[in-house]
């Protein structure tokens, strides 16, 4: 398992200073949450669009802050959802031998093992149109 320090060096993203740089990032294939974003394992059509080196901002925070950025080492793909389903951000496929990460300044890294996943956002009843923003 890489440490937060190693992931910062590889991806060039920054996370809050108080987060332990030596903490290891678990690489998991099950359901995970990074704040208001869920990584949900699915069986279905894999994604086909390669994740660029600069990453994919799957949820963009205000004023460039608090963005959930999807990055990867090895072959990984992300197709943004075009179906208009409110909670689904898109499909992520991580090939064997590759690892994807969601990076966020406050939540550091979520390590994602090979497989296909739906990335989803969180909602609130109070405003079905307005999704939770952290």
């Amino acid at each position: 398992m890489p440490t937060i320090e190693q992931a910062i060096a590889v991806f060039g993203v920054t996370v809050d200073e108080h987060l332990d740089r030596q903490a290891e990032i678990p690489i998991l294939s099950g359901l995970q949450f990074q704040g208001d974003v869920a990584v949900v394992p699915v069986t279905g059509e894999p994604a086909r669009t390669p994740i660029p080196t600069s990453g994919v901002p799957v949820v963009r925070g205000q004023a460039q802050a608090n963005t959930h950025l999807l990055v990867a080492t090895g072959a990984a793909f992300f197709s943004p959802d075009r179906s208009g389903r409110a909670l689904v951000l898109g499909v992520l496929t991580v090939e064997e031998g590759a690892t994807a990460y969601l990076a966020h300044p406050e939540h550091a890294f979520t390590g994602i093992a090979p497989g296909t996943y739906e990335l989803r956002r969180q909602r609130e009843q109070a405003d079905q149109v307005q999704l939770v923003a952290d």
Partner: protein
Amino acid sequence: MSAPASARPATDEQDVSAEGRQAFESAARACYRQIGVSFPERVVWVPSPLVGAFAAPIAACLVTGHRNGRVLDSVHRAVDGTAGETIGRAVRDAVRAAADGVAGDPVHGAAATALHAEITATADTAPRGTPTGTRATVTEAADADVRSAVDAAVGGARQDTIRGAIRLLWRACLPGIRSTPAAWWWWPFRDFVLLCPPPDELRREQVGEGDLARLRLHCPDGPAVTWVDGFGLYFWHGTHVPRAVVDDTLTTDEIIREPNAEIRRCAIERRGWDRFVTEARLAQIGPAAPDPGNPGQTLTLHDVPPGVYPTNVRVLLCTNGTVERDGTRRRFGLTVPAHCTDPIEAAAWTYGLTPAQYAQAQRRS
């Protein structure tokens, strides 16, 4: 959350330059000419619409022959006491500039007061501004807050000429003239004109992205709209709210009794559901559940009685998966459908998962 965008007023909201003021005065002069009234020599710029609302009626009373110094002092003290001494000083300055030395002439009494009806009628030849966008929002909110301040100062049982004039004439202002944005409000009287510039500062946040991006007034820790004399308007994510909402000084009872549902919603959001649930003792639904994937943390579900929130909801209290700078974990509440009966079901709903799926969570960060 969001970083408030702070800006000097833009669009038809630029800095008020000397040239801008001159241009506005020329346009105002044209309005007087249109109705055949000579333009007054006394043109007074007030720092905020609140100062204008007090100063214009008081000055109008003085120039129409009001001579009771005791009443005048008592009104000024009431303004000091309710609106603060900075506003009070600015009101006295404006009144002095508008009315000192003008020969009081009780004969033309009412005719010497506001000319706004006639000037409004000159709209065809003098293009007046119809406020839109941020300016309309600010105008409406300023109107409401000035009304409250006027009520607080002179709305009591006491009756006298000046108090009566303020109650009647505080709104005797016109929106600025669109082609000359230096003034957003002006009070046209026979013997003087009061003019008020746009706010000094607007704080806004961006909502939406790309083509859908727009700005709305918001400041989480102070006024979102301020004038140079400190008069300010408070906004919570675009909703005009009383200062006590943003300052977070309301009691739980005051929040629950607030008659305006939108203001109540903003006050609860400002306080944070985690605190509000505890302070309002919102009943817990079912037992607390360990949060799957978030070791050591629990989820609790709480009922929200009808009438507290604008929509029928329950509240799920959660704890962040990551520690804050100070070593604590942020607690926060999410509104969920009122039919949820268990915290796991509620948490699962927020991501569109089944409770069985949610229970399998491996990690939350």
